[in-house]
């Protein structure tokens, strides 16, 4: 904006102050949490000298480690499935017309805007019926656990992946695909050699988003987790409700680092996308 409308005097000072305060507000709590995770004091919010004890305790804690590995398994599995399904959905919506397309489009938006708690309730009620039916029909003994957690995560991740991939597809020229088809490439070859390389940053972005959402979710997972299966956030949430301990500080920081890594990766991707995308 030009200097003619640039606020002056008090307004300017207030705007600057507000800007710095917002960043302080965003980052101070995170920074303090990281610092206190190295504090030797048993009280989570007081400083008692440097230590790595709580991280060591995390390493020695079998149930925390199990929750971590469960979390990673769930995240990887649900990400892979939702990336494939979400990309297919994005392609169908951006490149084809078919009957029921509008209904499908609307349906894809629902999991994004529905409140967590409502989705959690939906999944709880659904799986309490679904497994009964499946077990009765196929004579199995399926229970809530890995299956139900992964199925729920996929149900909300497909939508997010498809939104990200669609944004990429929409900004892309389909003349190249048409040229490939004119030059006798099969549909699959045109997709494999022309479309896919161009949308891959979008797919990667969608995958990172799906993984972040899966690793972050507490409410829905808590409702569909079963005996022997909890993810790390649900485990931590349970610990917090029992009472805060320095161990939670350490686990929280590990989770923080994981999600920060994913953000940085996706921002780097965004940069790469901006560099190669149209304009």
């Amino acid at each position, binding site marked *: *904006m*030009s200097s*003619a*409308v640039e606020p002056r005097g008090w*307004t300017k000072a207030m*705007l*600057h102050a*507000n*800007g710095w305060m*917002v960043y302080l*507000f*965003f980052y101070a*709590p*995170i920074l*303090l*949490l990281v610092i*206190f995770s190295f504090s030797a004091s048993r*009280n*989570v*919010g*007081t400083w008692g000298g440097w230590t790595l004890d709580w991280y060591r305790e995390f390493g020695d804690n079998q149930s925390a480690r199990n929750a971590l590995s469960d979390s990673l398994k769930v995240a990887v599995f649900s990400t892979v499935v939702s990336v494939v399904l*979400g990309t*297919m*959905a994005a392609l*169908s*919506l951006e490149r*084809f017309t*078919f*009957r029921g*397309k509008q209904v499908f489009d609307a*349906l894809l938006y629902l999991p994004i*805007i529905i*409140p*967590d*708690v*409502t989705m959690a*309730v*939906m999944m709880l*009620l*659904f799986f309490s019926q679904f497994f009964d039916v499946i077990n009765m029909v196929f004579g199995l003994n399926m229970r809530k656990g890995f299956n139900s957690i992964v*199925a*729920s995560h996929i*149900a909300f991740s497909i939508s997010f992946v*498809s939104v990200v991939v669609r944004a990429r597809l929409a900004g892309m020229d389909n003349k190249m695909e048409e040229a490939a088809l004119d030059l006798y490439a099969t*549909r699959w070859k045109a997709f494999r050699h022309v479309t896919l390389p161009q949308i891959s940053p979008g797919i990667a972005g969608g995958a990172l988003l799906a993984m*972040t959402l899966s690793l972050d979710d*507490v*409410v829905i997972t808590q409702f569909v987790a079963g005996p022997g299966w909890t993810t790390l*956030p649900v485990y*931590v949430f349970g610990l*917090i409700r029992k009472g*805060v301990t320095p161990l*939670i500080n350490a686990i*929280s920081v590990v989770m*923080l680092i994981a*999600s*920060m890594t994913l*953000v940085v990766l*996706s*921002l780097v991707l965004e940069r790469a996308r901006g560099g190669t995308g149209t304009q």
Partner: protein
Amino acid sequence: MTMVDESVKDVGVEATPEFEAAAIRQESQRGFLLALPSYAYLVLFFVVPLVIVVVYSFATRNQFGGTDLSGWNIDSYAKLGEPIVRAILFRSVWLALITTVICLMIGYPFAYFLATRSQRIRNVMLVFVMIPFWTNFLVRNYAWRVILGNDGPFTKTTEFLGLGEHELLFSQTAVVLGLVYGFLPFMILPLYASIERIDTGLLEASRDLYANGWQSFRRVLLPLSTPGVIAGSILCFVPSLGAYVTPEILGGAKTTLLGSYIVTQFLTARNWPLGASLSFVLMAIMLSATLVYFRKGGQTL
């Protein structure tokens, strides 16, 4: 190419050469097959669960804490009028409203500040807004638990400043603080998107015509950024209303909110019909808010 299109439109499907119609049908089939896996998945794992919630909301809770699906009634919706439930509904709406207003008051000047920076500084600043937006929500709430907790940095600071001992944790203030912390980026990003698009010439023109700073904000900037205000407010209000994690971590027994109350109905009170009807109401609020958003010509982030 255009000739073919016109012939399809004018002459109709019957008269088109057969291969043309077949090709169109095949394309449409391809599209449908591509959509089918995710379509079917969402029907099974989203639409069916949604229907089940609706069915449960009309069911009856029996004395064993189970649910009788026979004999539909609207008892659980009638329960929404009971004092306890009504108090929780009001409190949730109230806190969500306060959260939204605070986010708007902090977020608007911030978004304006952001939009008036140079391109390079703006990009860096945006990245630092995006990071908390993506960072684990549970951990960010927990950080406040540590700060506000017993003998934590907050109490230390108020003592140091001579304000005496303040206990914020487990209060409504703490919940609002956590909600603002969680949803402020949801307010800033759409506001920034809509302020950034405004033609600055209009602001200059208003100043040239002797409007003072307040007048040009009130008459030019604010009306032009209304879509961003609406979008940001909805994005803050709706998740605040259904918040569960924040009130559980930062709130106390006296500050039960809608989200926690719904969860309680399923995990401890075992009144599934009531929980189902409440979550359905929550979803209805969300859907109407989204409709308002699209009516006002908003767009997704």
